[in-house]
């Protein structure tokens, strides 16, 4: 029900996991890799996790959701490694007797996960790469920030973007 995986996520399987004759509703959320972010053309995303703690945080999020809504089951899965464009990096499925509970709890779970899960995202874009939200990432981006993001000129000639210097001497993630 709560996992860090290296393979593509099956939403069908997740729905089967939370499905139950006691549930009248299943709400799911999939976070997928977008082709552009703050005007940058994204090539791929790469995720890294602290897996043991991430799973423990997923469990805590689900337990908290259960105190607020009448739920049947909760499943939370995050993928690590390279996630190609259009594919899911995170999936949440919440089943409940009634639809409002399932949908609100699903929304709560993804918002909480984004806040607390020890998972890091490196964006590989045309002209560079950057750890999203980190020191070198100028305006602490997240999936909801594009609307108010600034556009930065970046180095299309190759190498790394001016606003996201990465020392090529340092090893890249192997996850």
């Amino acid at each position, binding site marked *: 029900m709560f996992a860090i995986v290296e393979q593509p996520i099956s939403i069908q399987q997740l729905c089967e996991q939370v499905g139950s004759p006691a549930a009248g509703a299943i709400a799911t959320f999939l976070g997928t890799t977008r082709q552009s972010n703050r005007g940058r053309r994204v090539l791929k995303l790469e995720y*890294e996790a602290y897996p043991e703690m991430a799973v423990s945080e997923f469990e805590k999020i689900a337990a908290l959701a259960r105190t607020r809504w009448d739920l049947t089951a909760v499943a939370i899965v995050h993928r690590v490694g390279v996630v190609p464009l259009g594919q899911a990096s995170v999936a949440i499925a919440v089943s409940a007797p009634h639809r409002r509970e399932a949908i609100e709890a699903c929304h709560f779970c993804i918002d909480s996960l*984004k*806040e607390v899960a*020890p998972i*890091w*995202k490196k964006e590989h874009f045309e002209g560079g790469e950057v*750890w999203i939200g*980190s*020191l070198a990432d100028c305006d602490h981006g*997240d999936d909801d920030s594009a609307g108010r993001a600034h556009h930065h000129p970046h180095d299309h000639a190759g190498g790394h973007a001016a606003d996201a210097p990465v020392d090529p001497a340092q090893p890249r993630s192997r996850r």
Partner: protein
Amino acid sequence: MKLRVLYFGIVRERLGRRGEEIECAAGASVADLMTLLAQRNDIFALGAGTIRVAVNREYVDGDHGLADDDEVAIIPPVAGGRKR
């Protein structure tokens, strides 16, 4: 006392390692450890306002007291977080 310190994301990448064992004075707090780390590498100083710390897989504050054999994870800003 001996701590197992884990690095992730940009910190791991800048340091070039996933973690290490660090000797620390008995009774040291998380803040003490961060001061020690900041003296060794400026990424910790740079990230002082944004880095969170988890001890044995739980987020803790700077005044949390460390114990021998603790697993201390240095948590740079996470993928989705805006507040920290």
